[in-house]
């Protein structure tokens, strides 16, 4: 793991800190609720929770600007909440209801929001990496200075198409930040057992792509690294790799028996490295917030999450006609929206 905390004195306002606390807590409480609804049979199929990794997306969203794009794999609920998508729409998609972002036709792994420039939600490990580079290709072609955050895991980092993409992204100087969310386990296979290099970001060197490892349990360290990466891409210097060392507390998916790591290992991470506790400490010790202030935030988040669960339960199942819609478009929807 990278060092526990960013060494530099954090250049951050109390309001920003509170916002990060709120955003990370929203993800955690939302995911806990999703786990609960899964247990009740309201969410089906695969459901990959983001608990433990919250600082990654919240830190990077703090470095993003209006118009930047993001794309990720199937552990995607956190990314959607962090970029401002509506918790009701996300939760209702998890329950497969009409009010979901894909009107119940996508599920946990397949949600999109062109409005928030979130391009999914992809279930094939590694496949979203060239897709993300393609979004960046479009921005470069169109001559704007937008950046695409392309998230993938330590497991995906062993897929061939990732390196095909590194090659072309470097060759064509595409404005893409490759974010490797290294939670140390590709499903149940530890990085040590699957990956020849201890620091995955160093693989970019073969393509001339700069990169660095970041402490993913420290939202401020993530933001700082994100700002550096974004500045690099926006200035036309091509791609940048951030390997963010993080940890998922829950199983790979809901049906993970967790036999590949010890309970103590998980417990130790939760107790010593938790990203939300870190910000909570900063807020309290710095006198930026009182216990009561934080309790108020906790309550506010709980309400948002409970409302999303209620919405997701009450929203009806999609109409049967939906089976046959959205197969072939008359007009490319994103082009129509842009007009």
């Amino acid at each position, binding site marked *: 793991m990278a060092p526990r905390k960013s060494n530099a004195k954090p250049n951050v306002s109390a309001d920003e800190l509170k916002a990060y606390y709120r955003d990370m807590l929203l993800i955690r409480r939302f995911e806990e609720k999703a786990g609960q609804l899964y247990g009740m049979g309201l969410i089906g199929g*695969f459901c990959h929770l983001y608990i433990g990794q919250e600082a990654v997306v919240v830190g990077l969203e703090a470095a993003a600007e209006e118009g930047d794009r993001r794309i990720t794999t199937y552990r995607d609920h956190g990314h959607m909440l962090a970029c401002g998508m509506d918790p009701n729409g996300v939760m209702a998609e998890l329950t497969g209801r009409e009010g979901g972002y894909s*009107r119940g036709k996508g599920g946990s792994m397949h949600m*999109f929001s062109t409005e928030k420039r979130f391009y999914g939600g992809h279930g094939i490990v590694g496949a979203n990496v060239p897709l993300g*580079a393609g979004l960046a290709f479009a921005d470069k072609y169109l001559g704007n200075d937008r950046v695409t955050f392309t998230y993938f895991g330590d497991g995906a980092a062993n897929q061939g198409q990732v390196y095909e993409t590194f090659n072309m992204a470097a060759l064509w100087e595409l404005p893409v930040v490759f974010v490797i969310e290294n939670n140390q386990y590709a499903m149940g296979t530890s990085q040590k057992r699957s990956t020849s290099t201890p620091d995955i970001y160093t693989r970019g060197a073969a393509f001339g792509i700069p990169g660095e490892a970041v402490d993913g349990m420290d939202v401020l360290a993530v933001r700082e690294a994100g700002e550096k990466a974004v500045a690099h891409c926006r200035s036309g210097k091509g791609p940048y790799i951030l390997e963010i060392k993080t940890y998922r507390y829950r199983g790979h998916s*809901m049906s993970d028996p967790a036999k590949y790591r010890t309970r103590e290992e998980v417990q130790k991470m939760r107790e010593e490295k938790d990203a939300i506790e870190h910000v909570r400490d900063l807020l309290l010790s710095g006198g930026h917030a009182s216990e009561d202030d934080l309790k108020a935030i906790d309550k506010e988040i709980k309400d948002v999450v409970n409302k999303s669960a209620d919405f997701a339960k009450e929203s009806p199942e999609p109409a049967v006609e939906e089976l046959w819609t959205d197969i072939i*478009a008359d007009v490319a929807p994103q082009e129509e929206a842009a007009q």
Partner: protein
Amino acid sequence: MATEILMPALSPTMEEGTLAKWLVKEGDTVNAGDIMAEIETDKATMEFEAVDEGTIGKILIEEGTEGVKVNTPIAVLLEEGESADDIDTASSASASEAKDDSDAAETPKSAPAEAKAPAAPKSDTSPDWPEGTEMEKKTVREALNAAMAEEMRRDDTVFIMGEEVAEYQGAYKITQNLLDEFGGKRVIDTPITEHGFAGIGVGASWGGLRPIVEFMTWNFAMQAIDQIINSAAKTLYMSGGQMGSPIVFRGPNGAAARVGAQHSQDYAAWYSQVPGLRVVQPYSAACAKGLLKTAIRDPNPVVFLENEILYGRSFEVPKLDDFTIPFGKAKIWREGEDVTIVSFGIGMTYALEAAEKLAEDGIEAEVVDLRTLRPMDTDTVIASVMKTNRCVTVEEGWPVASIGNHISAVLMQQAFDYLDAPVINCTGKDVPMPYAANLEKLALTSTQEVIDAVRQVTYR
């Protein structure tokens, strides 16, 4: 309020499980994330975590109990300030709530899907261009090249990427001169990396561009088929209509000449199976041009299957500034009363040659060129078979689950009473493509096979 903790579903298929072990006891305080119990599912032993904080008021199911149904209350959790005395009222309230939830999960609110697929369009046999239009001789290669150049002039967001499309001028010269006219920004040589550049193309289509991705041959696109199907074809549906993939994948498909098994495969049937894709396989230069222009303008992913042997063939092409052919419209190349021969792409050469020879013996074949395989103009095929009562299909692809098989099934279901003979499918043989010249010839279908099939279905 006290809440019941329910037996969780811990896998997509779990209906019941064994409560193997309690790790908490009555009176214990738990926080969200604390492990409360071990539960054996149909797959594994899982740890069950608390979602809310509180005190365990009562354990309802003893450890070691087998066959505990999902959503059965297994314990009661008390909030701050509550005591075990509150349990009774709480459990009845939350039990009814839980029941509602399980109903919601198990009983679909709406009736089983009865929605029907939209009806297919009616047969359209209108001419592709106005009568009296001036014509000129063009090769399929020139027609494809002109289609791309015209569309790139019309729309700045159209670009082409692929192996050797720019400086080399195209491995088969389909992109000749495009680099000179449009420059390196829009005519892009890629590394040999089909999977990667197919994915970049799809991403670019989401980002507001209209990519044409050339595969040097479709054989190499097997490296990229995941991006074509999972990313391009399915996203409109998975996104509930928010995002489409306006992209054309094109290149030569099927057998060329003496290039062996790995370079000689026809993918028509493969891609035609995929909802969300358009699949086109033109025969003539005019169809190639009109359909490629339509493909580039279409908001959906298009698989455009060309043929190397046809590239150099010349056909009459209308001299029109802007000429397109709609998808889903077959073309009747030759009218006849005795038998319907249905084909597409290079299969049309066998079909038309067979029809000429059969005519010498007085058998008049109607030859239908499907042109687009998805959507497929089965209405025109059915209308023709209702007239001729007999059908032979022709393609170079493999026989199992072929386009011919599909047409046979459609005719059986929708024109059974009109058929006077079983439909015969002329296809490539069920073998990898051999290299030896004599064997290769045998592996493909042939004009003679089509003639023989027609004689069989016409009993003549």
